[in-house]
């Protein structure tokens, strides 16, 4: 270790030779090529590519056939060349992927940077016994390298050896500390660092396995339904205003004439049926979507690594080292809260929701849906040690109701005159902002709570739904206490906790004193565990 100022001097002499004189003889842990069946996939790809020119060639212009042939040969040629030249090699330090004939390239990915070794397999690949291996790093770019495709056995072997090798590296503190400093995603601190994974086969613990019933419920309680209906109507209205429907105006006129010819009761029935049909369509599609996406969802713990397997058509297998978990949230939308159901999500270093190419895979979902009690019972598997931490829950300041009421007054003060001027006395409805915001304030106050344990920080917030979040204090990057003008007036403050992955965690409407004390103790703990990581 090159650290010389902060550490006790005794530590340095022991550590320095360990890195400096580390022998560089490389042991090859695993190596291989793509699976030959990939050529079949590529052949299909090439055939699909030339389908259009081929058809044109046959039907219209014969010289398109030549074009199709050239394209086909080129496609297949590059595919074969790629297949022949691509090889991977795993040593104790890094994963190397080499490819190319004219333009040779070798990519070396240090083991410590590999955050996630995911598997994906489409229906076709599954039939051929193939998986796509996605090497994910903490760089925030998501997928760093892609091996399309290996045989399932090779892929499993690679992952196994890789995890074991990384476990061994974590056991050597000098080497690990050096890399922790060098790798951005790693500098986030692993005070909860696990004992090294043993190279032998480790037992797997099933943390959670989703039943089809749970997945059905997930689809049925998907609130995007509501949004779907609302946006559907909004889109119709907008289209109407923009006269986009003028093309279909004849049809609409017919429908309108038909509708107006009906009796009011019958009209109501027709409209209700239409609405229900839209709703039912939403329920069915989202339920089917959830069933397909999360089919057979299994969360298991293997040593220190969490693993998720799911999918019906495209199967996905994603790993998440437990030490990289930055925050775990248990989310309940209002409908799910009514039913006592919750979704568990985990943010990890190097990725944020809505960023990167892999958002379709539901990658931050750890449990698609389960009972609230089960969700809380699973927490220790995701955040080891949380079961030993004692939490004393505190409420936010009741003054937040006053703050919300004042916000309501401000809104009313702006909206009422405008509405009155535009619509006459009916604009007095703008005054409704005051009671509405007050009620919102009461709801927020009832849901808001926080607790600071020794190594975890937990909070709960929501209006009609509710979200519980837990952050290991060792992962805290920075803390901000913010006061808006109204908060300054009322002595309130908003606390924001930054971690290396996901969006910041916000805790609104604490008293200023609480917020400052909490911020100070959080950041002090973060600094202490950062020093311990060094």
């Amino acid at each position: 270790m090159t650290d010389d100022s902060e550490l006790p001097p005794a530590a340095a002499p022991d550590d320095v030779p360990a890195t400096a004189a580390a022998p560089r003889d490389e042991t090859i842990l695993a190596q291989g090529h793509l699976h030959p069946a990939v050529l079949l996939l590529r052949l299909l790809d090439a055939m699909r590519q030339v389908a259009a020119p081929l058809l044109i060639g046959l039907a219209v212009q014969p010289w398109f056939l030549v074009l199709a042939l050239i394209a086909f040969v080129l496609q297949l040629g590059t595919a074969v060349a790629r297949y022949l030249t691509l090889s991977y090699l795993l040593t104790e330090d890094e994963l190397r992927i080499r490819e190319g004939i004219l333009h040779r390239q070798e990519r070396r990915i240090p083991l410590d940077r590999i955050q996630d070794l995911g598997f994906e397999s489409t229906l076709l690949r599954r039939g051929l016994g193939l998986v796509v291996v996605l090497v994910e790093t903490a760089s925030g770019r998501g997928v760093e390298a892609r091996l399309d495709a290996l045989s399932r056995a090779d892929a499993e072997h690679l992952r196994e050896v890789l995890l074991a090798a990384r476990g061994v590296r974590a056991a050597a503190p000098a080497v690990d500390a050096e890399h922790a400093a060098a790798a951005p995603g790693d500098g986030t601190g692993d005070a909860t660092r696990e004992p090294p994974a043993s190279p032998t086969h480790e037992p797997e613990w099933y943390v959670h396995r989703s039943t089809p019933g749970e997945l059905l419920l997930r689809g049925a309680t998907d609130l995007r339904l509501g949004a779907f209906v609302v946006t559907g109507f909004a889109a119709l209205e907008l289209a109407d205003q923009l006269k986009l429907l003028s093309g279909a105006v004849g049809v609409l006129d017919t429908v309108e004439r038909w509708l107006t010819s009906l009796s009011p009761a019958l009209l109501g029935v027709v409209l209700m049926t239409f609405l229900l049909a839209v709703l039912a369509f939403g329920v069915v599609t989202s339920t089917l979507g959830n069933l397909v996406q999360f089919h057979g969802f299994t969360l298991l713990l293997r040593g220190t690594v969490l693993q998720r397997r799911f999918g019906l058509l495209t199967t996905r297998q994603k790993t998440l080292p437990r030490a990289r978990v930055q925050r775990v949230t248990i989310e309940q939308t209002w409908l799910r809260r009514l039913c006592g159901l919750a979704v568990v999500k985990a943010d990890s270093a190097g990725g944020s929701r809505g960023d990167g190419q892999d958002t379709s895979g539901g990658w931050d979902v750890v449990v698609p849906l389960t009972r609230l009690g089960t969700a809380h019972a699973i927490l220790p598997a995701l955040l080891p040690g949380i079961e030993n931490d004692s939490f004393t829950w505190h409420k936010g300041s009741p003054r937040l109701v006053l703050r919300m009421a004042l916000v309501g007054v401000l809104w009313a003060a702006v909206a009422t005159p405008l509405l009155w001027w535009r619509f006459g006395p009916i604009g007095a409805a703008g005054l409704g902002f005051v009671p509405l915001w007050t009620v919102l304030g009461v709801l927020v106050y009832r849901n808001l709570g926080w607790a600071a344990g020794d190594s975890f920080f937990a909070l709960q917030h929501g209006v009609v739904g509710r979200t519980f979040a837990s952050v290991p204090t060792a992962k805290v990057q920075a803390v901000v206490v913010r006061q808006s003008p109204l908060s300054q007036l009322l002595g309130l403050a908003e606390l924001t906790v930054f971690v290396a992955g996901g969006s910041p965690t916000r805790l609104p409407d604490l008293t200023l004193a609480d917020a400052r004390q909490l911020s100070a103790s959080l950041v002090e703990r973060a600094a202490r565990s950062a020093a311990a990581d060094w």
Partner: protein
Amino acid sequence: MELAEPPRPTDRLAGRVVPYWMLVDGITSLLLAVGLWAFARPWLADNWRHWSPGLDYALLGVSGGLLAMAAVMPTLSYARWRYGFLGDLLLMRYGVVFVEERAVPVRRMQHVDLMRGPVERLFGLATLVVFTAGNEGSAFRVPGLPLERATELRDRIVQMRGDGRL
């Protein structure tokens, strides 16, 4: 976890940051005001049905407000700005309308930048920017530092991290 009495940072920015901010904000406000009168007003007068000459006063108010902000805000902002090191922490407290208190452990910083714009250089000022891991809001900046002070802070952070690897 028991809650400790939190400290507040005490160091102030260089006084000459006030004229620097006034200059920069003043130029921005001036450009906006000119844009309003030269482009927005004629366009509105021609194309907006509800335009009335009385709205000229509103526009005048907006322009005046912009310039007044440029004149007043720097002083207020300077009066509020505090930063400082407390052991392993970099603390800052600032903001006129929204007051923010930020705390970053030095060992959580990924890298440190010194930024000096052309006008900033004329005033002999520098901005210290520290980055932590993460995507959103991972940059923390301390503006208006004299160059020597900024360099000293940067070196101190590097030294506190202990490895000169920043």
